[in-house]
C-alpha cells in the first residue's frame, strides 16, 4: 500500500502545484519523451509565475521540431503554452529559439515584450547541473563555456593546465516526465530516445510526476530495464488508450 503511486487524473496530479513553482519538463524537445498531458493539465490548472526548466523549448509549435507529420498528426504542443497563457515568467533551457525568426515562438514573444526571462545554458551543462542536484553534488567544474558569454560572472579554475567553469546544481520543485510504462511502485521504463532529460530530472525535483501509457504490477518491468527508480517517483498517471498525442 505504502508504495502505491497512482494518481487518479492528470488534473489531480498537478493540483497542488503552487504559484511560483519551478517545473522541470522531461524529454529533449519534440513529442518523444514530452509529458504533453501533464503540461496541458498544468496549463488548465493555472498556476502562475512559473519557472520552466527544459532543453529544447518552444520550437515544436513554430517549426514542427520532433513531431510527426501527416493528416492525422496532432498540432505540436511545447513549453510555449505556458508563455502564451502568461503562466511562466522564466525559462532555463539550452535551445529556446529556432534558426528562423518567423513566426516568433511564444517564448520569444514573451521575452521581447519583457514578460519572461530566458536563461540559456549549454546542453551538457544543463543536464549535468540537473543530474548533480539529484546526486547530492552542489557544484562541479566543466570545460564548456570557457571564453564565451556563458562564463560571465562565474568562477573559473585551472586543472592540469586547462581552464574550467564552476557550475552549480539545478533543483526544481516539480519534475514532469514521460515514460512508456510504470509499475505501481513508480518504477519507470522508457523507450528509445524518449529518456533524454527525464531520468535526471526525476532525481532533481522535490516531487516527480510521470505520465505513462501503461501501469503494470511490480514485476511487469524487467529489473534490467528500469530507467527511473520508483524511489524518485511520487505520482504516476496513465494516459487514455488512443490518445492522439504521441
Amino acid at each position, binding site marked *: 500500500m505504502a508504495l502505491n503511486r497512482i494518481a487518479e487524473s492528470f488534473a489531480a496530479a498537478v493540483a497542488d502545484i503552487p504559484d511560483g513553482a519551478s517545473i522541470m519538463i522531461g524529454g*529533449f*524537445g*519534440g*513529442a*518523444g*519523451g514530452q509529458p504533453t498531458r501533464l503540461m496541458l493539465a498544468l496549463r488548465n490548472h493555472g498556476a502562475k509565475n512559473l519557472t520552466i526548466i527544459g*532543453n*529544447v523549448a518552444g520550437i515544436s509549435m513554430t*517549426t*514542427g*521540431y*520532433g*513531431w*510527426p*507529420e*501527416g493528416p492525422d*498528426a496532432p498540432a505540436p504542443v511545447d513549453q510555449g503554452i505556458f508563455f502564451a497563457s502568461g503562466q511562466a515568467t522564466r525559462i532555463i533551457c*539550452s*535551445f*529556446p*529559439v*529556432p*534558426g528562423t*525568426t518567423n513566426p516568433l515562438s511564444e*517564448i*520569444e514573444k514573451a*521575452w*521581447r515584450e519583457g514578460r519572461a526571462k*530566458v536563461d*540559456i*545554458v*549549454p*546542453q*551538457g*551543462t544543463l*543536464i*549535468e547541473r540537473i*543530474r548533480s542536484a539529484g546526486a547530492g553534488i552542489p557544484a562541479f567544474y*566543466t*570545460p*564548456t*563555456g*570557457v*571564453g*564565451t*558569454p*556563458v562564463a560571465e560572472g562565474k568562477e573559473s579554475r585551472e586543472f592540469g593546465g586547462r581552464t574550467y567553469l564552476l557550475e552549480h546544481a539545478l533543483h526544481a520543485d516539480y519534475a514532469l516526465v514521460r515514460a*512508456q510504462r510504470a509499475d505501481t511502485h513508480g518504477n519507470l521504463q522508457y*523507450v*528509445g*530516445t*524518449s*529518456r*533524454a*532529460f*527525464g*531520468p*535526471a530530472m526525476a532525481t532533481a525535483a522535490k516531487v516527480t510526476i510521470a505520465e505513462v501509457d501503461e501501469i503494470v504490477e511490480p514485476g511487469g518491468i524487467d529489473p534490467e530495464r528500469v*530507467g527511473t527508480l520508483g524511489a524518485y517517483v511520487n505520482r504516476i498517471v496513465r494516459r487514455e488508450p488512443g490518445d492522439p498525442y*504521441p
Partner: protein
Amino acid sequence: MTDPARRLNRTEIARRVALDLPDGGIVNLGIGIPALCADLLPEGVELRYHAENGILGFTEMLTKSTGDPNIMEASGNFPKLVPGMAFFDSVESFNLVRGGHIDVTVLGGLQVSRAGDLANWLIPKRGIGSIGGGMDLAANAKRVIVAMEHTTRDNQPKIVNRCSFPLTAPACVDEIVTDVAVIKVTADGLVLMETAPGWSPEDVQAITEPELIVSDTVSVIRQA
C-alpha cells in the same frame, strides 16, 4: 569584385568534409551543411553517428509521417532502427561529449577567427540565441571541422581576425571547409590547403580577413 568561378554548393561542401571523417569514428554532425555529410561517405567507411539527445549508431532517416517520435536524432528527425544502435539518456550523451569521446564534430559557423575561435550560436541583433549542444561539442570533441559558406550573403568574410559575435568556444576549430577553400588551423595561423576549381589562393585571400599561409601542397578541393 566578382568570383573567378562558381562556388561549391552545400552538397559539395559536405562531400569534401566527408573525406575527413575517420573510418570507425564517433561523429556528431550539426544542423545544416554538416548533416548532409552522412549521405556522402566514401565507400567502405563505417562511422557511428552520435546525436545529443541520446542515440549512437543511427544511419538513415524515415519520413516524419512514418517515423517514431520516440526514436529521434537531435535535429528532430526520426532515424530508422538499425543493428548496433544504442539509446541512452542525456547525462550519458554528454559524458560522451564532455569527456572527449567524440572523434569528430562537424559544425556550422557564423565566424571563425585566425586562432580557431568559433562563433555560431548568436547574431546579437537577433536577440535570444540557442546554444544547444554546440558549446559542449566545440569545446570537447577531439576534432572540430567547421563547414560553412566562405562569406556572408553580403560577401563579407566569415573567416576573420577576431570574431565580433559571441563565441561558442575559443581556439577549438581544427579545419574549415567552405564553398571555396579548405583551411587548416595551426599554431602558425591559417593554412590554405585546397581551393575550389577556378579559384586561386589570391582569390580566396581576397574574401578572407586574416592572412592565409598557402600550403606547399595546395590543390583543388578533393571530393569523395
